[in-house]
């Protein structure tokens, strides 16, 4: 009997305390970001789909086609081919394909690159109606951040 009464009273108080907390929350500013009307800036290190770094003067890709990224990738997402042109010291890239359907954005390719020719984009909301849109992405052609 005594236990039941203390349960009743204590329980009632505990419910009131909870209600008070939720009521206080009601008057606090909203923390929700109303996506897609508002978006948050992506942090500097955000790992989006990789893209090639280009020389700002010539627009040429910095990639030397050494294939380190191809080897480092755990999921075999990258295909890199290059040739050595007459008069050039280094190889230049002729093909750079990304299979984004298999990419897990681990960043091994960016980390292993000896000339920092790969970087992460800030794209986080890519979408398509067909799977083929992502399985053969030609990074040599893409010059801007990927957009949905």
């Amino acid at each position, binding site marked *: 009997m005594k236990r039941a009464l203390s*349960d009743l009273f*204590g*329980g*009632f108080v*505990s*419910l009131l*305390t*909870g209600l008070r*907390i*939720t009521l206080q*929350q009601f008057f606090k500013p909203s*923390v929700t970001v109303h996506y897609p009307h508002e978006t948050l800036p992506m*942090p*500097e*290190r*955000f*790992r989006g789909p990789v893209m090639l770094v280009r020389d700002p003067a010539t627009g040429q890709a910095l990639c030397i086609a050494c294939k380190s990224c191809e080897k*480092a*990738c*755990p999921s075999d997402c990258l295909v890199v081919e290059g040739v050595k042109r007459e008069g050039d010291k280094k190889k230049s890239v002729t093909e750079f394909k990304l299979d984004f359907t298999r990419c*897990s*954005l*681990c*960043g*091994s390719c960016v*980390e292993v690159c000896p000339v920092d020719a790969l970087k*992460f984009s800030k794209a986080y909301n890519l979408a398509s109606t067909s799977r083929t849109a992502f399985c053969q992405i030609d990074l040599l052609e893409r010059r801007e951040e990927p957009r949905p």
Partner: protein
Amino acid sequence: MLLEQTISTRGTEPAPETFVLNLGPQHPATHGVLRLKLTMDGEYILRGEPVPGYIHRMHEKMGENRTYAQFLPNTSRIDYLAAMHYTHALVALVERAAGIEVPPRAEYVRVITSELNRISSHLVWFGAYLLDLGGFTPLLYAFDDREKILDLLEAITGARLTYGYYRFGGLANDVDAAFVEGTRAFVTYMQPRLDLYRKLVTDNIILRKRLEDIGPISAEMCRRYGASGPVLRGAGVACDVRRTEPYSVYPSLDFAVPVFPEGDCLARYRVRMEEMAQSLRIIDQALTQLPEGPIQAKVPRVIKLPPGEYYSAVEAARGRFAIRVVSDGKDIPYRVKLRTPSFANLTLFEEASQGMMLPDALALLGSLDLVIPDIDR
């Protein structure tokens, strides 16, 4: 025992009609694709058989056909809510086996990020568990706080869930002053929030009635099934890998291992709530002791472990996670075995749920804090 009581009120025989109830694989209370095959006698469970395997991804086999560095991203994806701890286990294993000395700054940052990850993982459990029990509001509070942790970790790792932040011999990149300040601010912010959770949820009479004396799990049962983590500590055993098999810089940090001897759902609930407070304490100390210096040791380009067997365990958010690697001296491991806490914790469900009412069994299932990819791996 409960089963016997219900049967005795009905007569000597169990009801002639039992039925099989499939809970899952797509059920909100199983948090993923776990299937429970429940043989029911009315509202009471005669036998609750878990059927895992719906999200099996062969992580062990994947480990056996790629190099150690290539397997590293996988470790974030076994238990996606506690990615840091799992990566820690693999890097610690390789570092110990290859004799790599990790710089102290890297070790401290590992502890800070691991403990942040533990709090965020417990917050997800807290929100989702109360959702299972029928309380929606606490989820919003928990996710508001978790968002702050995710923002901190995203700024330094570049991802919100599958961090993949640790490297053999160090870290992927260094933390900046903004992270240290932000984490400090989070610690001061979070302590009163835990108090708020106590007032809002833990002391709530409805929750108490729902969890007290429900789903008892004894220390003996934990021993038989190999249960670990909050399940074991909620059964009164002060077993924490950070204490029993110290790794990283945990020995130099002062923290308590919360233990509640009752063994019911409420005890496991309180262990996790108390663990969040202890994690905050660890983060606070680690931030104060955080030394300057390099974050990456010199590591050979191709990692080959000498032939032999290696084992490394960490205290993940759900209990003891361990990796065993058998190496034959090549750059690809011969065998990788992952010991995941959720799997061991799930196995005791069949015995523990016997004779329980269905809603109580869901409270028990939630209190085990299962992550299904962690079971199936």
